[in-house]
């Protein structure tokens, strides 16, 4: 937990400010199913909160109390709700609220309540908050670049408040830091397909293919760029089959004779969609054969399935299924 900045954690029962309030203990009923023993400070804070909540007191001290309660248990969604009611009633400074959220963000980066509260605040601040918010989210992502909540929030900010101009560059930076970051690849796709400044998927396709091919050649065992590559040809499988860059990167990786599972899979998919390989492809696949797969099936697609069944043995059933599907198609 972060340390409290406003009060020194003094017991509420000893504060003059709270003298007029009778704290309400938790009502678990006569036979509590789950009797709970609390730590003293926690118990006291929640007793006072219950009193304020029941009285529906939307005052400055109530606001401070919810902050204390949030620090003690940020998963208490009722406290967050009430805080919003108080913020509204007091017409509070929401820029300050955003600062508060940013201070507790790092220790609560996966807390649903915090992120939803943050969106509520930013919605009220409006368009002016967009740029600052994108910057703040970057700080959070710098500590955990795959934080699902942060990414979901970032996508909302872009769509609601704009700021698309620098986003592709940001994805680029993150991928330079970790080319295996699936969230950054997903965001790249989000930007390429939705940014009002980039012209859409088709317009971006050639440059994106080049970028992705480079990423693949650097780490052919990286699942992300292979999926991204396929995604660039959404609904246009013919173009995928006909793009020489695609088949070429498969061939290059297979010839490396290492980390070729995804390359073989892509080649298999291309063949299933009508790709006509030159003899080089057959030669390269044959070069992968081992004692387990010797002699290879003369049909290239079948041979690929056989190799993958052995090399990606966790998913042997999947490759056997693919092979059976080929036999069915051939009939």
């Amino acid at each position, binding site marked *: 937990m972060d340390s409290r900045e406003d009060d020194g954690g003094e017991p509420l029962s000893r504060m003059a400010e709270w003298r007029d309030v009778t704290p309400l203990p938790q009502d678990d009923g006569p036979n509590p199913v789950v*009797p709970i023993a609390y730590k003293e400070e926690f118990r006291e804070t929640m007793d006072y909160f219950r009193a304020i909540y029941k009285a529906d007191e939307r005052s400055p001290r109530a606001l401070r109390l919810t902050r204390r309660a949030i620090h003690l248990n940020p998963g*208490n969604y009722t406290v967050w709700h009430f805080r919003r009611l108080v913020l509204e009633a007091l017409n509070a400074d929401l820029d300050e609220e955003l600062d508060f959220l940013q201070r507790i963000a790092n220790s609560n980066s996966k807390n649903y309540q915090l992120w939803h509260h943050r969106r509520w605040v930013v919605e009220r601040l409006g368009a002016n908050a967009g740029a600052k918010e994108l910057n703040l989210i970057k700080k959070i992502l710098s500590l955990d670049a795959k934080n699902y909540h942060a990414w979901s929030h970032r996508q909302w900010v872009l769509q609601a408040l704009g700021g698309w101009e620098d986003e592709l560059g940001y994805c680029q930076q993150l991928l330079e830091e970790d080319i295996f970051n*699936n969230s950054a690849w*997903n965001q790249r796709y989000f930007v390429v397909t939705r940014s009002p400044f980039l012209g859409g998927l088709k317009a971006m396709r050639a440059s994106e293919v080049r970028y992705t091919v480079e990423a693949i050649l650097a780490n052919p065992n990286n699942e992300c760029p292979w*999926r991204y590559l396929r995604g660039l040809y959404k609904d246009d499988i013919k173009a995928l089959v006909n793009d020489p860059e695609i088949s070429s990167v498969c061939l290059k990786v297979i010839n490396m004779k290492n980390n070729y599972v995804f390359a073989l899979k892509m080649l298999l998919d291309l063949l299933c969609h009508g790709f006509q390989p030159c003899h080089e492809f057959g030669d390269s696949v044959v070069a992968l054969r081992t004692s387990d797969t010797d002699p290879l099936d003369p049909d290239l697609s079948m041979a690929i399935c056989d190799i993958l069944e052995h090399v990606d043995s*966790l998913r042997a059933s999947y490759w056997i299924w693919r092979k059976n599907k080929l036999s069915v198609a051939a009939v």
Partner: protein
Amino acid sequence: MAELAVDKHVKYILAVEKNKDSFESVVMDPLRMNGAYWGLTALDLLGKLDSVNVDEVISWILKCQHESGGFSGNIGHDPHILYTLSAVQVLALFNKLDVLDIDKVATYITRLQNEDGSFSGDMWGEVDTRFSYIAICCLSILCCLGKINVEKAVSYILSCKNLDGGFGCTPGGESHAGQIFCCVGALALTGSLHYVDKDLLGWWLCERQVKSGGLNGRPEKLPDVCYSWWVLSSLIMIDRVHWIDKEKLVKFILDCQDVENGGISDRPDDAVDVYHTYFGVAGLSLLNYPGLKAIDPAYALPVDVVNRIFFSG
């Protein structure tokens, strides 16, 4: 291979429900309803639901219901769709759905559907495909699915489908096994699985299995026992579960047990909790581990409970 330490896990779950001194339990207090669902469903799968006092549980659950018809995570908290489903699921476990005013619960949920077919979690408006699943699962259990706009609900879910065949929390959101379970489950319960590209999604899901045999939730992330549920149930619903190595996954889950003190953790040697204990046991049930009750992959309730709802009138 290790075995499932059934008695230790039962003891652990019962202790968690009764003895609430730890900081963890205090933190869990606002979501006690979810905790009750995880603990009690795990007990039922382990054949030990009768270790619990039914009347006490039911009475506590009803105290968590609000005027709006929704349920809160515990007494003194606000209602939310998350806890409404858990409450209904726990009542179903005990065959006590008749204590509910079904119209009241249905109204609460119906009011949370938005114009675009999505669902909010509560009056504060957070939207997430998790809530689509919850709404559909809850109303399905209560046999009044028709009270929401099913067509729009389905179309919103489909707008969250990604190119890898998976689903995210909102349109454009990264595919994530937890969100995929919710979307596939919701589509299964509304008879809409034909919209799923089962081969494409099946391959994405079976790629979640890593060398240790465990499953991760997204590419290039660490395995976690809870994905034994999210990924596995999704694979079963789309009839592709044979694409993973089941034996290796069983071994991974069993390695995540604390065989001394009971409970299951996210990965081997980490601290245990009720959430992962439930998902580990549920995952083993889906893998047909001997001695466990069968669990329904869409409703996330024991099969006999689901049959009782739909086949006993």
